[in-house]
């Protein structure tokens, strides 16, 4: 398949002034030429085909947004080559923007004071969408969600969920080839999150739109992305599907147990008692989760040790969750990606 996004060895460096503390320091900064170079993105190569949904994962400040800004043409890469839709985005930003849609979860591109439909009409004119395409799109939206009440509501009166939904609709309106979604589900409740995921997936399938998504929510990843790219400290750690990732961590199991004592206290006690084993213990209200690497420690052995001192009421054995996989990679304790 033809690739729509192509990054070859892309890097981005920022020049940042070394700031000094205090009043005297601030005055010194006015004349300072003491810069440091920060590598926000380091040698990333990527190839995305039309119609794919790719999830960008990574801790805060990993370089995800910088990468997206380069792909949209707002930032120019320091090194490497970047091609979107057969165009170099920063050289041809105005043309490029015709064929991409962008949603920043923290910020709205809609006109605050006016009903949504006015924003839509404006987008129709500035992206020069034909009447037919516009009406078809609204019809499609209408078949997916209850559009009518949303259209006539001023954007400033919308809830965060409604606003995000509207922003996503606005980004897809001119039927762009690529849509960039930067943390689209941030701050939303569970019902709204799943509604938005359905919406994104539906539009991706019906319009064959390529979607690049950054998120911290593993629910988004599980619901939407076949392929994930993990970035940390500007470097690409992983680029493949989620199943491969789990296979890599195939030896990991999560042992969940419930004890006859207070979960909170028991978790603390267990951490101490089992400190000689190579495991990670965490807990919620009712369950204590123990992440075990079967290659190093047998689950049975862990269970035995627990039963020596505690009485177990209930237990479950699970494969590692996406969330745990990602956490493992961020923590870097596995030597993964090196």
């Amino acid at each position, binding site marked *: 398949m033809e690739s729509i996004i192509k990054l070859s060895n892309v890097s981005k460096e*920022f020049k940042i002034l070394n700031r000094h503390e205090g009043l005297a320091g601030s005055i010194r900064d006015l004349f300072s030429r003491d810069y440091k170079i920060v590598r926000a993105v380091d040698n990333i190569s990527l190839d995305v085909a039309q119609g794919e949904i790719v999830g960008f994962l990574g801790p805060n400040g990993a370089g995800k947004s910088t990468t997206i800004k380069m792909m949209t043409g707002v930032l*120019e890469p320091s090194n490497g080559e970047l091609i979107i839709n057969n165009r170099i985005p920063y050289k041809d930003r105005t043309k490029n*923007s015709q064929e991409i849609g*962008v949603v920043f979860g923290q910020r709205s591109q809609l006109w605050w004071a*006016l009903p949504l439909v006015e924003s839509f009409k404006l987008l129709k004119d500035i992206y020069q969408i034909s009447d037919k395409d516009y009406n078809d799109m609204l019809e499609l939206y209408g078949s997916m969600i209850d559009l009518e009440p949303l259209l006539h509501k001023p954007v400033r009166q919308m809830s965060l969920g409604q606003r995000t939904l509207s922003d996503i609709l606005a980004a897809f309106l001119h039927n762009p080839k690529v849509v960039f979604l930067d943390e689209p589900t941030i701050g939303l409740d569970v019902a709204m999150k799943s509604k938005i995921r359905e919406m994104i997936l539906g539009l991706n399938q019906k319009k064959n739109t390529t979607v690049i998504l950054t998120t911290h929510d593993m629910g988004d990843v599980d619901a939407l992305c076949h392929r994930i790219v993990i970035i940390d400290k500007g470097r690409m750690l992983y680029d493949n599907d989620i199943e491969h990732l789990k296979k890599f961590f195939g030896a990991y199991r999560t042992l969940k147990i419930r004890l006859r004592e207070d979960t909170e206290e028991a978790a603390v006690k267990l951490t101490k008692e089992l400190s000689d084993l190579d495991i990670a213990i965490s807990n919620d209200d009712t369950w204590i989760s123990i992440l075990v690497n079967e290659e190093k420690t047998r689950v049975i052995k862990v269970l035995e040790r627990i039963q020596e001192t505690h009485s177990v009421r209930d237990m479950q054995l699970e494969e590692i969750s996406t969330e745990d996989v990602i956490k493992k990679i961020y923590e870097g304790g596995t030597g993964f990606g090196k």
Partner: protein
Amino acid sequence: MVNKLKKYFALTRLGVLETLQWRIALCVMVLGNLLYLTLIFFLWKAIFASAGTDVVNGMTFEMTMVYLVLATSLYGVVELYLVWEIGRNIQSGKIVLDLLRPFKYKQYVFWENSGSLLVNFLFTFLPTFIVVRLMTKGTIPLGINLIYFLLAFVFSIIINYNIDFIVGTICLYTESIWGINIMKQMLVSLLSGATIPLAFFPDRVAAVVKYLPFRAIYDTPLTLLMEADPDWHTVVSKLGFSLFWVIAISLFSNLFWRLSIKQVTVNGG
């Protein structure tokens, strides 16, 4: 071509809608202008009284008042507070969204604000003009001068917009807006003849101000408006002067923006 224009006028339309949403703000603006006009009425009355003659620097009290009233309402139309807007967008990072519209940024900001310009013209300048005309019974002639005025007015908008855009671009470097903006407002309202007619300037200052672009914003359109039948030589030289600055300052602001945005996209901001 039609589609292309539609793209820009769509922004104007939305700006009109948005401005009309804030009808209280519109009323307060009119009220504020009235207060300001009362103030300058008494100020200039005192000035003419202390001068002891009816004509000061070639202007009667009535002419001076008509000029200042029109200048004030013109200020309400032309001044779009764009430096604030551009500066705020840079600070908050919203500029990224604006850069992603299928427009050149400079055009986008202009057309996005053209709606409120139109509303202000129709709701403050036009009524003021009519009231002044009725009250003074003919200080303002109605003839060919209206055409000259409209032409000079378009130039005035373009020059003022470019000044704002240049100052806004400076915000890319300073990341602070307040001081720069206040300085710009003071400089423009003084040197353009918005607060004091240029006829009242000392000769030496006037000799310099004559060549600066600022006078094209208020002085040129208003003096053209108030003169019944100016000789064509005056008209051509005044409009020619404005046109020269329209071109010069547009070129400069485009260049400055291109260099500056390069700075941002290369070094981040």
